[in-house]
């Protein structure tokens, strides 16, 4: 059983705390990715998910990263709900004995999230709102 967790939440998270909790004596590398709401002239962003399926898909991606790269710790936390510029969107922490597997596992996970996890973003600007196009339209 590889340590770590998958979570979809309406609450903010503390990247430092998640990273701290991932530490263990057997890990030589911890790679983290934090996605943040970028200021593209927007006032806020609403994230929507098909939660039941998104959680299963995140867990599936986590398992695939573990078997593909041999990493030994994976956390994935993804927020939904209304966010403002600078807010955290997603955090991935991948731990491994060595850095290469941790880097590769982390990149694999964020790429797969963008490809298959049912989450959408709606941006609100002073003029109105727009759905963010997926990278796999």
């Amino acid at each position, binding site marked *: 059983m590889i340590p770590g967790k998958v979570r979809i939440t309406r609450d903010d998270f503390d990247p430092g705390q998640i990273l701290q909790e991932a530490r263990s004596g057997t890990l030589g590398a911890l790679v983290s990715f934090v996605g943040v709401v970028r200021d593209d002239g927007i006032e806020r962003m609403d994230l929507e998910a098909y939660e039941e399926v998104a959680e299963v898909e995140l867990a599936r991606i986590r398992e695939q990263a573990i078997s593909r790269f041999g990493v030994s710790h994976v956390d994935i936390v993804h927020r939904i709900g209304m966010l403002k510029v600078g807010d955290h969107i997603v955090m991935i922490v991948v731990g491994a004995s060595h850095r290469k597997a941790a880097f590769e596992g982390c990149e694999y996970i964020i790429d797969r999230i*963008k490809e298959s996890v049912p989450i*959408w973003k709606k941006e609100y600007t002073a003029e109105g709102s727009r759905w963010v196009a997926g990278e796999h339209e």
Partner: protein
Amino acid sequence: MMISVRVRAFARFRELFGERFEVAVPEPATIRDVVMAVGQSNANGMGELLDSGGRVKSSVIILVNRERVTGTHREDHPVADGDEVAIYPPVAGG
């Protein structure tokens, strides 16, 4: 004999068709029957769901009972009474 299918729509499709609703389709039913019933519920619906050739657009993602249905013959996938069919546009999380 009509069956009732529970539909869930997300993002742009939720705004067009509603978040959760039921459609009645004649038995034996397929994904295509459900998509047609959903599309008819909104004046702009068909254009969002079907391409110019009348096929369900490849960009429309479809799940039956939370499992994604893919492939060139996905429109023929059977749907049973009480099934949950989800439709959504390409995802944009992360």
